[in-house]
């Protein structure tokens, strides 16, 4: 056990799985970097933010494959390699680039097993960065997990900390279905204690990061940390919050969410993806349908407005959910009074 960053935790998961299984390969734009050109340093980048640094050195060019900037062909190649005996981990860099290769994910990899009558296995992982907060503007800041969650055949993972990232990525690589693994780009330098040995965190099992009696907060990825901070502040005011990190949006641990709502009677969902048809609406529908009688206040959603992600810091800050916005939503649910029916 030692302190590791989110970046190091992911690197370690990749390295350990590549050592364990020779069919695990990496591919993507500049996952090594430095091929061709004027022959400077090979493995110059290790991914645009250094996540795969050092893997080329250990595993060489047959297992760490730099690609041209052609997402459709290499994401499709990863899908094709996955159904023919390899376990590729393809890096899409920014998840926004899925616009260039969605067919290969949505119409090919996700559907092989069903279309082919259960005969295909597609052990594919697609890693990508998501999220605002980096002044990266509209084409490099989206949180597109609802788009993937919508597609049957895909699994979708959103780690909320370095510990979670390592254990969930190991599960993703060992999984026989296509997995979209989304890393919040603001979190790469976040550190915490992470075990040195490999460990796997199962999909579809939510983690409770805080427990309290008054309000249930469901949050994803980076939002879990904000929800925890809001819960800690609220606890000082005498309001107890349970914070649920579902870890995966597909499969989704609806059971844990329903159990917690049954206990607290109030629900706040924190989701940094665009507000229409996102995880917050999905969970709100689930709870409205399955736990209507348990609710003591309307469900509140802490979500961005229905706009592209803006560039200027002042606007991006306004756009994003925050600890304060979560606190306000929790307080509002606590203050709700049910009107007597006449």
């Amino acid at each position, binding site marked *: 056990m030692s302190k590791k960053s989110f970046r190091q935790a992911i690197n370690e998961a990749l390295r350990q799985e590549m050592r364990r299984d020779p*069919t695990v*390969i990496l591919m993507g734009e500049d996952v090594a970097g430095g091929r061709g050109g004027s022959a400077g340093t090979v493995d110059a980048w290790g991914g645009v933010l250094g996540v795969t640094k050092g893997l080329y050195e250990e595993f060489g060019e*047959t*297992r760490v*494959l730099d*690609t*041209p900037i*052609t997402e*459709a*062909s*290499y*994401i*499709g*190649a*990863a*899908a*094709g*390699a*996955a*159904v*023919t*005996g*390899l376990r*590729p981990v393809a890096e899409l860099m920014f998840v926004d680039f899925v616009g260039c290769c969605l*067919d*290969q994910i949505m*119409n*090919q990899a996700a559907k*092989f*097993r*069903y*279309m*082919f*009558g*259960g*005969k*295909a*296995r597609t052990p594919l992982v697609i890693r990508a960065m998501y999220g605002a907060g980096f002044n990266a503007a509209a084409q490099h800041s989206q949180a597109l997990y609802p788009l993937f969650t919508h597609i*049957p*055949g895909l*699994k979708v993972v959103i780690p909320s900390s370095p510990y979670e990232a390592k254990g969930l990525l190991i599960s993703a690589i060992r*999984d*026989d*279905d296509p997995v979209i693994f989304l890393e919040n780009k603001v979190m790469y330098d976040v550190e915490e204690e992470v075990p040195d040995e490999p460990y796997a965190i199962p999909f*579809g099992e939510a983690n409770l990061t805080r427990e309290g009696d008054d309000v249930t907060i469901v949050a994803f990825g980076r939002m879990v940390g904000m929800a925890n901070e809001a819960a800690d502040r609220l606890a000082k005011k005498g309001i107890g919050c349970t914070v649920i990190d579902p870890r995966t949006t597909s*499969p989704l641990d609806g059971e844990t969410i329903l159990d917690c709502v049954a206990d607290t009677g109030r629900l706040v969902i924190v989701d940094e993806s665009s507000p229409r048809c996102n995880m917050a609406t999905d969970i709100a529908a689930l709870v409205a349908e399955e736990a209507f009688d348990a609710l003591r206040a309307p469900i509140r959603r802490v979500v961005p407005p229905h706009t592209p992600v803006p560039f200027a810091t002042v606007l991006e800050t306004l756009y994003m959910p925050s600890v304060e916005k979560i606190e306000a939503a929790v307080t509002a649910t606590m203050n709700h009074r049910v009107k007597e029916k006449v």
Partner: protein
Amino acid sequence: MQIARETLLRSYRAMRTIRMFEERLHVEFATGEIPGFVHLYCGEEASAVGVCANLTDNDTIASTHRGHGHCIAKGVEVAGMMAEIYGRSTGVCRGKGGSMHIADLACGMLGANGIVGGGPPLICGAALSHKTLRDGGVAVAFYGDGASNEGTTLESLNLASVWQLPAVFVVEDNGYGEATGASFACAGTQKARAAGFGMPYIECDGSDYFAVHEAAGEAIAHARAGRGPVMLHVHLQRWYGHFEGDAMTYRAPGEVAEAKRDHDCLRLFRERVTQAGLFEDSVLDEVDTAVTDEIEAAVLQAKDDPLPQSADLLADVYVRY
């Protein structure tokens, strides 16, 4: 190149099977009994068979929406294909894929594909598997002149060259992408495109089994030897519409009749092998009879086979969820 007698007979049977499979679907589709869309491969049989005669189960192919011919040529079982097209639980995909998604990974058939240009990237991946696992296999993408303009295809030509993959890109050029002529939709030439990505280019007459077999043999040997990808451009004629029910008003009167008269790969094959004294007509007639019986049995069986059950709706979305 000398082709073994056994290979020739197997190829003739495969081409005849494709022809009869498709001609029968043409008739059966018109009755309304077959759900969905079907796209027929009639007239193009020598391409799939001439290429696949150079492959084994260890090699991989990806096909197109017009995929029945590739499936049969690669060894997918005919009765299971027919049952699939009829939406039966006995189909090769248990009735969940249909005509456009017939696949059989066990014999290296990575699937027909409902998306034009869907296959070439997958073939880069299959070729990467062959190369990485060092199993000696080659991966072959079949795609049409229409798909040759898709970004996925052009990106795949580049990637296959960059990674020096054991891949062959077979452009089945039947002159039409849906209802639009290749002469309108394809800028430049396929040959120049291959050159642009630094790969060898071979072209052949797709109505001549022997020409396809030889050209494909050369392309596949090149890829198998680890010398990188090759483009094989096969010139073909499509005898039916883009889909069944297409009246083909975009084609000149007589164009299809002329193709059938002058470019029938089965007739040309028969003439060549009988004139060369390789086979008596009676041997080929026997094959025709056997195939007729096989197709008849497949249709009767498919119509009689069980439909999928309601539990099948939810099965096999994931390996585990």
